């Protein structure tokens, strides 16, 4: 009987991730998360047959990867892709093919807003990132003028849009609204424009390389708001934090931290650090938990796509990402109502400073250049 159960518990899951190309550095952190998840699932008696596809950061390749996974590899469920741009066409195809897909990190709101039945997301959508960040900043002190600086990609514009909506709702005046195209060596003119508007809060959405350039050049120009806050992505990543001269005091909203107090988060971070010699970013945790949940459901459903979908829909988990449940709210479907955390770099370390129940340190305010 037990043997039969063990044999039955072999599941076939597809992964779409950015392993090469411009998004590869972050893609790698997701891959690491998947690796740890497969090990833990094995310990729990679920043998995962993982079929990994590389989308090279390009939406059209992500789309054909999904089609291959569904038709040729006949996977039960899919976890991925990493970026919003890739996820956008991919979820449509997943819905059409009736295969459950669990998005680990992509933040674009529309992904879980299109009345799809097979599309699930564990991370918070963009509006959560923006509002948690601004909530935290407003809790620190009064602010009147908001500037938003973001890259003109799916992720950047959708996160910035919700920040602007938040500002309108909470009586913040939007004094600068700057979308930049990433990869430019010089953002000084954009930042000069922002500086001349004298904002209290600067909200930024960038990946890590641009995050470093932007904050470096902001320091050069002596742009000094009361708070710099990054929406997800680059501003709490190890590479950014390592730039000690510029990272100190920068706030960032994020989906996960090791000191969040969620069950197993700390142990996960230690294991990850030992294995890969670097602290895990939130991407790794999202990837780990997504694959764990998907594989668990696929095992329970005996590799039946329809039953796996039902399991995702009805299940409840409490792991390293905190409480997870896919529900419908505020126009979202199958969306985990994930509590977004806000971190700050203090003495070269990322610490959780908001919300209160997860905070381990007091935020430093107002912002000052080192």
């Amino acid at each position, binding site marked *: 009987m037990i043997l039969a159960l063990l044999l039955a518990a072999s599941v076939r899951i597809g992964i779409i991730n950015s392993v090469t190309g411009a998004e590869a550095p972050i893609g790698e952190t997701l891959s690491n998360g998947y690796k740890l998840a497969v090990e833990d699932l094995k310990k729990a008696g679920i043998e995962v047959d993982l079929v990994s596809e590389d989308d090279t950061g390009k939406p059209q390749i992500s789309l054909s990867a999904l089609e291959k996974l569904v038709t040729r590899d006949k996977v039960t469920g899919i976890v991925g892709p990493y970026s919003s741009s890739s996820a956008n066409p991919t979820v449509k195809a997943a819905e059409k093919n009736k295969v459950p897909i669990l998005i680990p990190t992509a933040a674009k709101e529309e992904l879980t807003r299109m009345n799809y039945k097979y599309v699930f997301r564990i991370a918070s959508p963009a509006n959560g990132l923006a509002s948690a960040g601004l909530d935290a900043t407003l809790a620190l002190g009064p602010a009147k003028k908001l500037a938003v600086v973001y890259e003109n990609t799916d992720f950047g514009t959708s996160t910035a849009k919700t920040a602007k909506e938040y500002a309108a709702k909470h009586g913040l005046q939007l004094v600068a609204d700057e979308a930049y*195209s990433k990869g430019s060596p010089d953002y000084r003119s954009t930042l000069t424009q922002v500086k001349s508007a004298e904002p209290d809060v600067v909200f930024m959405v960038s990946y890590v390389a641009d995050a470093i350039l932007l904050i470096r050049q902001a*320091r050069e120009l002596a742009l000094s708001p009361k708070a710099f806050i990054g929406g997800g992505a680059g501003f709490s990543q190890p590479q950014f934090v390592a730039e000690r001269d510029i990272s100190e005091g920068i706030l960032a909203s994020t989906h996960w931290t090791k000191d969040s107090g969620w069950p197993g988060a700390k142990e996960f971070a230690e294991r990850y650090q030992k294995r890969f010699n670097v602290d895990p970013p939130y991407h790794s945790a999202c990837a780990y938990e997504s694959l764990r949940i998907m594989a668990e459901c696929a095992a329970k459903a005996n590799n039946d796509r329809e039953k796996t979908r039902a399991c995702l829909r009805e299940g409840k988990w409490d792991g390293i990402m905190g409480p997870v449940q896919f529900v419908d709210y505020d126009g979202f479907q199958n969306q985990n109502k994930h509590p977004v955390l806000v971190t700050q770099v203090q003495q070269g370390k990322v610490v959780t400073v908001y919300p209160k129940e997860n905070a381990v340190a007091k935020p430093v305010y107002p912002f000052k250049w080192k």
Partner: protein
Amino acid sequence: MAVLLQSILSGVLIGGVYALIGIGLTLIFGVMRVINFAQGELVMIGMYCTFFLFKLAGIDPFLSVVLTMPALFVLGAILQLSLIDRVLDALPQNQILLTIGIGLVLSNTAMLAFTSDYRILSTTYSSSSVALGSVRLSTPLLYCFLITSAITAALYWFLARTDTGHAIRATAQDRDAAQLMGVNVRNMGVLAFGLGSALAGAAGALIAPIYYIFPQVGGVFTLKAFVVVVLGGMGSIVGATLGGVLIGMSESLSAVYIGSGMKELCVYVIFLLVLLLKPSGLLGKSRM
């Protein structure tokens, strides 16, 4: 007012770097009539050299120019002797295919060797600046501009005052006539390609501390250098200098007054207008 001054200043400073890459490209084109589409990849190699010299040997990125320039000169000379020289009499499209191919090989080799990770070079002065009234002058960008100017001045002097410089210019003006006058045009080609690559290497070293480094970074600069050169007039070194500064400034000003996401658009609109009104470029002669 401060905003205007600041953006003009940043534009001129960053334009200096564009000019340096453009000069390398225009020099190669002038002498050999070959457009080197691998120019950006040579910049990328310069950036990686600088990065590793800094990480492993602790050499300041701006000092490493003296090492990256000769290294890239040798690389350029080898490329010229082994590959480019064979297609000098071929159809232009074949030459373009060859240089694009060289670029692809270089960037993909870099990806294999160094992975596609973004690398950031941080020095103690990475985010420092000098205040000039209401305007702030970025320290690394200022160093970068000063060295660029010095290199450009040295190149002008070399081309205008030395015999070898005269020979290079003679070859650029008329290959056959130069050969009849006893100039070894083949050697001049090697020299020009080496110099062009060395300039790309210098630009790479100078940009490394103010930008980030990854194997595909070359594409950004090849395109920019091409625009700079065509804008200034193919083969004209003064034109490339002017073109570089002009592109830097129009990027910077349009980012402020039109929109950050629109700056590339503005650059290309200006570029198209110049081509429409003066097809040979700002300082180009009809044949050059």
